[in-house]
């Protein structure tokens, strides 16, 4: 399956970015082959709606599931509508590669409600 991991860097050894919408990069990883592509999150510094925009980017790359630390309510709604599975709780101490291994072992549980509060854009001015 195609798995999206929010990442602080551009490869599988980069640490996980803990906030979905504000992640610098997304890695779209084929869990069978471990081949991956990188998306730069162009909405990372958006005043508003970074999460929704990020959801759109990864959906366009056909991700079937997302692993991240926390996800805001708007991005959560978007991914839910798009039937993308959401796994929260990944730690920024782990690399993308480690997270995929943990995912394969079933260590993450699918989120049914967003864990995070309002998106971080809340604290930004227009």
């Amino acid at each position, binding site marked *: 399956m195609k798995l999206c991991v929010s990442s602080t860097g551009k490869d599988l050894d980069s640490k996980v970015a803990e906030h979905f919408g504000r992640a610098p990069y997304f890695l779209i990883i084929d869990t069978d082959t471990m081949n991956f592509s990188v998306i730069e999150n162009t*909405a990372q510094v*958006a*005043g*508003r*709606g*970074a999460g*929704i*925009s990020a*959801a*759109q980017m990864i*959906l366009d790359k056909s991700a079937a599931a997302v692993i991240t630390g926390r996800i805001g309510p*708007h991005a959560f*709604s*978007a991914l839910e*509508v*798009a*039937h993308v599975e959401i796994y929260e709780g990944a730690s920024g101490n782990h690399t993308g590669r480690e997270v995929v291994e943990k995912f394969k072992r079933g260590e993450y549980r699918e989120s049914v409600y967003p864990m995070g509060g309002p998106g971080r854009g809340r604290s930004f001015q*227009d």
Partner: protein
Amino acid sequence: MLMEKRLEACILKAIHKRPVEVPVIAVTGGKGGVGKSTVAVNISEALVQMGYRVALVDADVDAPDDHILLNITLKCPLDVAVTLPVINDEKCTKCRKCVDICRRHALFQPRDGSPILIGECNGCEACILVCPADAIERSKRMVGKTYKNGTNNLTLFTGELIPGVEESSFVVNALKARVFDEAKDSDIIIIDTSPGTHCNVINALKGSCEAFAVTEPTPLGIHDLKRILNLLQVLHIKADVILNRSDLPGVRGQLESVIKAYNTKVSVEIPMDDLLVKSYVEGVPVVRMYPEAESSKRISRLSKEIAAKYIK
């Protein structure tokens, strides 16, 4: 000096465009609680006493209170709404132009469906403009109200934002549109802005012939005065200073250097005045309740100067 920002000539022209011939005077000041509303209400009342028809505009839509200073109940409400886009699934071609244009990233396009509104729309209508299929309809979201109260020759226009809603500048714009539409017969329009230098203050100041920045001789007053004078400079609006509580033992030296730096002047000093405070508590403008008070005399004198300069 604060930041320097230059606006293009076309923007300045748009800012200064006034749909009516009536002169517009703004009362502003940067800092909160310096007496903007008290000054605006009393200038308006003084002008009415001189026989003029005055439209007073309470553009502090987050906390409008000129009606309290005038002891009147707000009447004639009109709703202020912003557009909420509604996408018609049958017409939508899923081209995604609306999703891409939205600066708020409020729209999201699922794999096979039409875009849906998930984020916080501010009603800018860019999506409607770019939609090639005419598939986006306008629904409405309430953001506030405007009111109109007429008493003798003083008409008070008030804007009121729904608490917690972000669109204060939309309410200011709607309020000014109503004023320019309904106050054509006035001799002068006095706009009482909110504190600050943000977009709803800018919208309140647009079209002003002159702005009076009310301040007090305190470090906070001077600091915020500098900011509002900076804004007025950016907007190319003639600025004057009204020094309230002028006899506070304060920082006159600093005040004078700011005034000099911005090439402006103190038009009037209003000293601390118990009679002004009494009238404030009663909800009657001091120029009406205690015309003999020192503050009344000074505000009346300033009002005469304003009338002489602007009212034909």
